[in-house]
């Protein structure tokens, strides 16, 4: 009998693959169905946002950074705004902090919904996508209400917010918060005890806590491995220390653990949103009172000389930021979003660098899927919740 040839096979996956969450290319080396090595190729969505930001005025960078992690847009702009505000030494009124917290948590829910829908779709629960996108539509409507833009609202600005909350905002948010916990139960009924789903995800893509930290994975992935690290608890910003919430964790470190962590996070986000919306008055302060950064109200521009000059300066030259560098992390939907900003004391940033959780997750991907089955690759990519816009920037 002729000897069996046992050679490995090289398979290309992506960049145009429906389950690579954008354009990620993987070159897999397979022994039968077992993955012997994987080589990710990224950069297809690299748009040079960080270089572009160096040519813009400080405030003009906000829409740019929102386009990096396009599913968690407002956690990018929050990180950027907080870091510039730290250099400027600004403190926000309490109402602005509360609105920012509310927006950040709604953004987290919105991002997790897309994650849950696509992850479910990829492992075979096709209907998840429809249920999740239906709920996310309500959050998009809230974005449209506050900024007129559903995807990248650019509502969070340096120095506060773009403008005050619109009429009907509280009703829209409350209606969503009222309805959503039931929907999470519905999602859980479809997946949490679903035998097919559990067999696809349990003991798949297992990571230990030490490995997760070694690969720089902080966020839901590390919390699925037993860590309780959450920027909101460890390094509170925007007054998160005044909210009552817990950090969900799981210890198994597999795809199913990450799923449970994210679903529990959505419940906690609803919890935080309910506390935040109760604190926010329908009208009130929506920016700090620093005249360097925040343009004066329109009626003063028409009646006072100084206000007119200030208005003109802010819209023509922008404002300057004291020289120095700063890194401010926020807890984004995918983990620690941080913004490293360097200023040389002029009206344009010298360097803007976003810490990208998806970048770290894709770096660790070959390690996570090593010696696993090819069918599990899709489940693992889904569970790391990568967004290629965030990865490539």
């Amino acid at each position: 009998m002729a000897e069996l040839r046992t050679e490995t096979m090289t398979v290309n996956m992506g960049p145009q693959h429906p389950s690579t969450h954008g354009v990620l290319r993987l070159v897999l080396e397979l022994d039968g169905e077992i993955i012997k090595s994987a080589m990710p190729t990224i950069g297809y969505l690299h748009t040079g946002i960080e270089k572009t930001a160096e040519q813009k005025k400080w405030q003009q960078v906000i829409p740019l950074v929102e386009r990096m992690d396009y599913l968690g847009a407002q956690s990018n702009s929050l990180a950027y705004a907080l870091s510039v505000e730290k250099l400027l030494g600004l403190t926000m009124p309490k109402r602005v902090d509360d609105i920012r917290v509310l927006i950040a948590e709604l953004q987290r829910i919105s991002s997790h919904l897309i994650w849950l829908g696509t992850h479910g779709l990829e492992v075979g629960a096709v209907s998840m996508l429809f249920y999740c996108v239906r709920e996310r539509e309500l959050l998009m409507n809230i974005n449209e209400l506050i900024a007129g833009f559903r995807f990248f609202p650019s509502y969070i600005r340096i120095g506060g917010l773009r403008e005050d909350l619109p009429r009907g905002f509280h009703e829209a948010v409350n209606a969503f918060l009222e309805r959503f916990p039931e929907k999470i139960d519905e999602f859980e009924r479809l997946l949490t005890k679903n035998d097919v789903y559990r067999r696809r995800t349990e003991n798949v893509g297992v990571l230990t806590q030490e490995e997760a930290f070694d690969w720089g994975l902080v966020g839901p992935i590390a919390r699925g491995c037993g860590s309780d690290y959450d920027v909101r608890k460890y390094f509170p910003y925007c007054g998160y220390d005044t909210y009552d919430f817990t950090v969900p964790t799981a210890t198994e470190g597999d795809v199913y653990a990450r799923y449970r962590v994210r679903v529990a996070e959505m419940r906690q986000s609803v919890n935080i949103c309910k506390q935040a919306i109760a604190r926010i008055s329908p009208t009130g302060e929506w920016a700090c009172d620093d005249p360097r950064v925040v343009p004066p109200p329109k009626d003063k521009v028409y009646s006072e000389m100084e206000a007119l000059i200030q208005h003109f300066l802010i819209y023509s030259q922008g404002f300057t930021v004291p020289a120095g560098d700063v890194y401010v992390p926020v807890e984004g939907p995918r983990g620690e979003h941080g913004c490293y900003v360097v200023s040389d004391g002029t009206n344009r940033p010298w360097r803007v660098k976003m810490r990208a959780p998806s970048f770290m997750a894709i770096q660790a991907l070959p390690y996570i899927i090593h010696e696993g089955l090819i069918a599990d690759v899709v489940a693992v990519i889904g569970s790391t919740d990568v967004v290629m816009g965030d990865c490539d920037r």
Partner: protein
Amino acid sequence: MDASSIIAALQPLVPGASYEAGSSVDFATIYVPADTLVETCTVLRDNPAFAFNVLIEVTAADYFPRDPRFEVVYHLLSVGNRRRLRLKVRTGADGAVPTVQRVWRSAGWLERETWDMFGIVFDGHPDLRRLLMPEDWEGHPARKDYPVQIRKAAQTYEPLEVSETEFKANIERDRVKRAH
């Protein structure tokens, strides 16, 4: 823990290192000379007083025309001690910084991206290739003397022309190479 107390605690542990405190508005910043970077990082990771177990970020800033023009920036996080630290290494366009990939595995791609964007060489890095830019890109786009808008002609390649025998020979060669 501010920068000066970290330096005071570090200096006896890394013989011959000369640190410098940097100014910052958020958390402690230390300038580390490139030749003692790996020893310093190992101590910062392993010593329980520091226990910086996560490398959050490696990036750089180009202060052209200052000399040396680059500052490589490392952001460290200690989950156990709830503390952050920023290390900075000054380097010029011809200089090199040792890789810290043996200390934290996450440094691999972060250093690769920094090389891709700034052209800073990381000594001992096993895989210093283009990451975000295409393989055949010229120059390092995040440098300050790199133009913001450039026009590059569309690059086209001749279609791959391999005969069937050549193709089979390639596969066979590849298989033999992998068998050894």
